[in-house]
């Protein structure tokens, strides 16, 4: 098992101490309204591990369940089955006041910074509130001082504390939510599409900021995104989700250079690249067709492999047996009967 093992940017393998978060076979179903009694299997047995000071990139399109996993980890919802261990302790067992207190260890930043800040409150209030909730600042003056410090850490001038979200740009708002998240010194931050709603020229700034904070504060990230390109630049390890399951998982460089699952390959092929040579190479060389079909309804999953209806490698066995996550090389798993490179 490669739990907790990550590859540092300089290429050396480092065995970590106990991982920060371990998710084990988590499942969550939603009952659909409308009296038809159908259920959506938003999470269908998901397992992953995030090491200390590491970033795990979770990639998927809509309906993949990645956002649901984030919410479950944040205890905004509870799973139907499975286990989650945080820092060695049973995370799901915590309830009530002990849970509230433990929340300082797991924080989050969300996709829409305007939505995740109370429009009626100033930035300083939002940060101070988080501090107050965990008794981290004695009085108003201390809160204000700390808020100014935190704003500085995310690259904002101290007077931003007096402004409301509507007065700030998208990038500034997101920095404020980051400041609020790190205010309580968490060990783990869930980033749910933190750059998707931002301008392109600002996305890079935020990604750099998150990297810097990981270095200085030693925090781990679960970076959820639909954008493979973004994930590539921040993740150490990447998991690809499809319809509630992880279908491939590998160290980041390996996943992007040698993907094994047809869905991953299709995702990589579909992502538009701002480079002419890359595009003509793809169109002429590999002859990758784009993935056809729609994402099937999450209520009626195909038998066997859930991806088989869109997969050109599908054979009979794919309809009979659901492929387990099998190891294709060290630290690299894929849920496919015929894993391997090549066109979809």
């Amino acid at each position, binding site marked *: 098992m490669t739990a907790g093992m990550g590859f540092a940017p300089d290429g050396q393998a480092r065995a970590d101490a106990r991982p920060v978060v371990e998710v084990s076979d988590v499942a969550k179903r939603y009952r659909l309204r409308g009296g038809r009694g159908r259920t959506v299997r938003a999470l269908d047995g998901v397992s992953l591990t995030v090491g200390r000071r590491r970033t795990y990139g979770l990639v998927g399109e809509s309906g993949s369940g990645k956002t649901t996993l984030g919410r479950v980890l*944040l205890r*905004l919802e509870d799973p139907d089955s499975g286990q989650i261990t945080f820092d060695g302790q049973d995370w799901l067992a915590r309830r009530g006041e002990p849970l*509230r*207190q433990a*929340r*300082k260890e*797991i*924080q*989050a930043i*969300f996709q*829409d910074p*305007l*939505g*995740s*800040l*109370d*429009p*009626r*409150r*100033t930035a300083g209030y939002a940060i101070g*509130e*988080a501090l107050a*909730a*965990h008794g981290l600042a004695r009085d108003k003056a201390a809160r204000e001082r700390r808020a100014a410090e935190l704003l500085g850490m995310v690259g904002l001038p101290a007077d931003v504390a007096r*402004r*409301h979200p*509507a*007065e700030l*740009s*998208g990038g500034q708002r997101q920095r404020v*939510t980051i400041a*609020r998240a790190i205010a*309580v010194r968490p060990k783990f931050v869930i980033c749910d599409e933190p750059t998707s709603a931002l*301008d392109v020229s600002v996305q890079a700034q935020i990604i750099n900021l998150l990297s810097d904070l990981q270095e200085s504060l030693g925090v781990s990230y679960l970076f959820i995104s639909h954008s493979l390109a973004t994930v590539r630049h921040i993740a150490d390890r990447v998991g690809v989700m499809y319809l509630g399951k992880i279908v491939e998982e590998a160290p980041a460089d390996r996943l992007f250079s040698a993907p094994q699952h047809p869905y991953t390959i299709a995702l990589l092929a579909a992502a538009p690249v701002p480079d002419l040579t890359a595009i003509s190479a793809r169109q002429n060389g590999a002859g990758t067709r784009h993935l056809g079909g729609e994402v099937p309804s999450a209520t009626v999953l195909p038998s066997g492999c859930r991806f088989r209806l869109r997969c050109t490698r599908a054979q009979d066995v794919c309809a009979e047996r659901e492929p387990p996550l099998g190891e294709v090389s060290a630290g690299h798993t894929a849920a496919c009967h015929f894993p391997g490179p090549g066109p979809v």
Partner: protein
Amino acid sequence: MDGMDVRVPADQVAATPEAGADMRVLPLILGRWGPLGRPARGPARRQIRQASRVRTRTGLIIAVAYLVLLVGWAIIPGVFAGTDPTAVNPLAALAGPSVHNFFGTDQYGRSIYDELVYGARPALEVGVGSTLLGGAAGSLIGIAGGYLGGWFDLVVMRLIDMLLALPGLLLALIFIAALPRTLSNEIFAIAIASVPVFARVLRGQAVQVRSRRFVDAATVSGLRRRTIVVRHVIPNCVAPATELATVYVGVAIVIAASLSFLGLGPSEVVPDWGTLIQNGQGYIDHDWWISVFPGVIVTLAVISLSVLGDRLRGALEPVRG
């Protein structure tokens, strides 16, 4: 903006060229908010104003001016009219509108104008009092139901629905009939009638607010549920509550007038507006002014409150990207 919605991107909201209306009334009202969440100062307030859909200033100014006049009538009636509206003057009975009596006189020679001025205070007391009382109670019930959900929401909302099935006047009537006829009891009865309306609206708002990201974010930050409700849910429910309350004052005034018209109003010496209208019923063919002017005054009050409520809503909503 009218017509095609030209969507200026979120980061440009500050520059959205919508309204330039200067709501001088706003600081008076908003300044009172205190711990419930002081809305923005300076540039943000400018944006909040700009985001409101104020087409013209004139309508609003007229409405506010009228309401201020009514408040003046209520507080210092002596300034606007004679000292005793109940003074009987048989010689001047049933005189039409004139320089001496702007709105004419009734069958006892009392000046309709004087009676209207003095009738403003009970009208406003009932209107504002019942709205505040019923609005506060209804809002809290609604917010609690909306935020907590579950069986509480189910049970309470079904009870509210039962009350809603009855028109406000009828509800008030039921309570008035059982209680002695004083002004406070009338306020209480009409307040009861307003509770279901506020509860419904605020429940919807609370459900919306509950599912907004910043509430999730507050939970994740580790705030206690109580804190979240008080500091985040309630302040973000104030805007529709305020708009509803403003309009409901008008509704309450009409209900009170209707009750008086039916003879079920509080028994006071100074006739209130509803009684005035009822008074002139028999004379409507020739001496129309006895009923018409009170009717007009009440109608204008309701319209002004409605206009104010509409503008307030736009002004109170914080700018959303």
